[in-house]
């Protein structure tokens, strides 16, 4: 992994110099979280159980998923731009191993995920209406694990989109379609059987289940299936993209 740390550090600096890079990836999820939180917060006065549950559990998990998705979309965009510009090819014609080049991008995204989460918690402390206690470290680990897993899907998407222009819309269409079936809005158990089967095939389902459970204070041992599924998603994603990934 010669050169990994230097390349990762350069990619972080390059990303932070991007005028909208940091804004889109970090600020937008935090803003969505704060705005929805305030709207939901004023609804709390109705004392409706559903609304409280939505704000207390649904919103943080939704925000976490949003962080993971924006990491994936940012990865897809960067990889396709790098491919189109011949940057990937140029880096590959050095002693850098191919996996080092791609791992650097994964590390950058995971780091940004953590930064966004920290900012969101800081914002939450200040603006969040409900006094919530949750296992901070476990939740952070669950989010990083989820992001790491679905980033592998990002590499598959980056392999199939023809040009950088299509990267963002194609990536967004795939990722947000997954959100719809992930049990985030409608619990998987409440879905018709066909949709349940589909939901079980969708990687995000396991991320949502894990994040929701950890947020609710459930132990990791109750979510071993989710963790195993996320590892499997990563393994499958890497296996597919190592076959179809294009460097130029």
């Amino acid at each position: 992994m010669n050169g990994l740390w230097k390349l990762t550090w350069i990619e972080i600096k390059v990303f932070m110099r991007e005028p909208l890079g940091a804004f889109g990836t970090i600020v937008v999820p935090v803003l969505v979280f704060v705005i929805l939180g305030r709207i939901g917060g004023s609804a709390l006065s109705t004392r409706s159980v559903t609304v409280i549950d939505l704000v207390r559990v649904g919103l943080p998990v939704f925000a976490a998923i949003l962080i993971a998705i924006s990491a994936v979309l940012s990865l897809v965009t960067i990889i396709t731009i790098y491919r189109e510009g011949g940057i990937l090819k140029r880096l590959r014609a050095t002693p850098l191993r191919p996996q080092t080049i791609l791992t650097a991008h994964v590390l950058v995204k995971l780091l940004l995920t953590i930064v966004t989460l920290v900012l969101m918690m800081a914002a939450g402390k200040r603006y969040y209406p409900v006094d919530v206690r949750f296992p901070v470290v476990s939740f952070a680990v669950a989010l990083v694990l989820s992001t790491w897993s679905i980033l592998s899907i990002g590499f598959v998407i980056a392999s199939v989109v023809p040009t950088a222009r299509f990267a963002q819309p194609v990536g967004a269409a795939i990722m947000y379609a997954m959100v719809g079936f992930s049990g985030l809005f409608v619990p998987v158990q409440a879905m018709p059987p066909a949709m349940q089967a589909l939901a079980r095939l969708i990687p995000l389902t396991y991320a949502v289940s894990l994040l929701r459970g950890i947020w609710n204070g459930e132990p990791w041992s109750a979510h071993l299936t989710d963790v195993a599924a996320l590892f499997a998603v990563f393994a499958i994603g890497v296996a597919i993209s190592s076959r179809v990934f294009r460097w130029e």
Partner: protein
Amino acid sequence: MDGGRDVVIRVAGCRKTYGATVAVDEVSFEVYDGEIFGLIGPNGAGKTTTLECVEGLRVPDRGAISVLGLDPFRDVYKLQQRIGVQLQQAQLQKRIKVWEAVDLWASLYRKPPADGERLLDQLGLADKRDAWFMTLSGGQKQRLFIALALVNDPDVVFLDELTTGLDPQARRAIWELVRGIRARGKTVFLTTHLMEEAERLCDRVAIIDHGRIVDIDTPERLVARHCPERSVALTTDDPDAAVRFRAIPRVDEVLAQGPRLTIRGRGDDLVTRVIDCVSEHRIRVTDFRTIVPNLEDVFLTLTGHSIRD
């Protein structure tokens, strides 16, 4: 001049196809230690494919390649330590700084790297070290890519269409840099579709067309072999001049356009023979110009089409 020189690159019977398209076929050549070797041909002739097979970036379907005694594909990481590469139309991260790129590249090689700051200085990039890649001009970008190709003090340097898109002034400056690489004892393997570049820069050239090597030699010998015709164009008011010139041995024709005559013939001594004739018959000449064929004419003769087509 080839006798006894070490072979650094050996390509034998190389073939590479993309689907139904045969990119290169039966490509064989050798590159000697310390020379500038040019692969020249029009766009799409197979130059980059050949080069990238030699660099280990592509695997040929057939044929054997050895670079510094290594197999470029199997020993690619070992080879990359000893070669420097500049790719056609490559880019770097838009907002990477010049010094960051040099620093990253320098960290990747086992051999103690060349002094990056000195390299930037030699390539005239010292005052650009903190500039973002996207803000560099075309010539500055190419000079940075040369710096990156030299950062590991390589034995062989590969340059693919190095000066494409540069203005003539930047092009000349880059040529000087490439000659400097040779002066340091390195071997340079370059591709170009600019015949002037090949003629001025290369010790030997291989002409490639439609994926096949047509001929290999020094530019001078290629011209002598394939385009032996020479012409002299001169202006004179002597009415007997045309007759006198036609009498010179091995002159094929003399074309007259008013006072302007064009004498076409063969052999390197055509010019001498014309001059002798001028002085012997005291022909009053007001303008005298020799027209020597170049690689462009060689290409036309060998392939039947111009390199620009």
